[in-house]
């Protein structure tokens, strides 16, 4: 039996009928065409599918779509504050060469956002712990840590205007 759910993604309201066995990852990628969120392992180890649900980073592959009823979701498509400017996290990833094949990037950036929202001045150790749920198969971890550290510095001086819900 399908369930009627209401939720927002990056500020847009949706009202959809979903089968209970579909994951949030499937809903975002297949129904809403938001393919910035990736699917890697499907078991909560790689973090490529990370999105924010009510401000908390979660694995969209382990989240049932039906369970986000009434919740607010943020994906990498909603990371940039406008259609023109990139988010400081995205800019820093480009500047430091933190993107290689790009498959882990969207998840890494969403976890970076979760981390910096809770801890605006993380140490290197705290950044690495914040990324503990991610794998980069290009193994470019150092640049990613460097990017997040740079983004943190920039964001402390110049808070980003968040997407309106």
């Amino acid at each position: 039996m399908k369930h009627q759910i209401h939720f927002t993604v990056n500020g847009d309201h949706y009202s959809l009928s979903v089968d209970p066995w579909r994951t949030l990852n499937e809903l975002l990628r297949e129904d809403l065409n938001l393919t910035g969120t990736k699917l890697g392992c499907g078991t909560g180890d790689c973090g490529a599918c990370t999105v924010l649900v009510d401000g908390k980073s979660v694995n969209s592959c382990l989240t049932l779509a039906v369970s986000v009823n009434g919740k607010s979701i943020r994906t990498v498509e909603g990371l940039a504050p406008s259609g023109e400017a990139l988010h400081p996290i995205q800019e820093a990833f480009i500047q430091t060469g933190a993107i290689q094949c790009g498959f882990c990037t969207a998840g890494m950036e969403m976890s970076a956002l979760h981390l910096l929202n809770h801890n605006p001045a993380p140490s290197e150790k705290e950044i690495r712990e914040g990324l503990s749920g991610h794998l980069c198969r290009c193994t470019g971890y150092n640049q990613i840590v460097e990017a997040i550290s740079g983004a943190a510095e920039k964001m402390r001086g110049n808070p980003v205007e968040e997407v309106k819900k």
Partner: protein
Amino acid sequence: MRLPHFDYAAPTTLEEALRLLAEKGPDARVLAGGTDLIIRMRHGLVKPSAIIHLGGIAVLRVITYKLKTGLSIGAAATLAEVAGHPDIRRRYPAVAYAAGETANVQVRNLGTVGGNLCNAAPSADNAPTLMALGAEMVLAGPQGERRVALEQFFKGPGQTVLTPGEILTAIQVPTPPPHSGAAYQQVSARGRVDICAASVGAAVVFEGENCKDIRIFLGAVGPTPLRALLTEDLVRGKAWAPELIAQAGEKAAGEARPITDMRASADYRRQMVGVLTRRALLEAQKRAGKR
């Protein structure tokens, strides 16, 4: 990789959840965070006919602490909520630490301490410390409520005393006595994000320089977390000294019943139990001193 088909319900009260669980029969499963259940379903290890999601039951998410009655952790409180809770961090730092050492950030935002215990992995990060602190599981069922000591809760890998139709509602931890401290120590191949190869939870009560009482539990070195009774007997009532801690490590290593698997060899696990026991006892002592 797709999930098998199932019915779904998201009750908002415990009564409704119990009624649904009875109605849907023995193939129904409750889901708290889903970080174990969804994976097991994806791998085809379980095929629930129905999933009853507990996340919408407000009372199951509550964490309370009172000096008189101790700590109560709602069954659907997430690992992140337990790890970050101010009262738990102050009064039960080992409990907060164990929750914060479980899996990774995203899994801690979804998964629950209750789920970690109910899935009954021998390596469950939250079990040894809570057992050492004398935690009790509050179980609700069609016949009403019952309480089971966490020490009696596990029956084997993936097996607990929960009967069909029962739901864990809360984990209750008594207020630790004065001059006591607890600690959790674990080791795993990849640092901290993967499942631990061996772990030790300890709670120690001091009387002056003596160990008045002690409880030690070993994780991932037996079919369930094991109580190190001989080690406890060795330490209890004695003057706290470096030689005693060293002997306790050796004794605990002897009490472990590890197997060799992909995470570690039995020999390695046994040696690590010795190391982790010593570390846990020293940390528990430090924490007791801080009170």
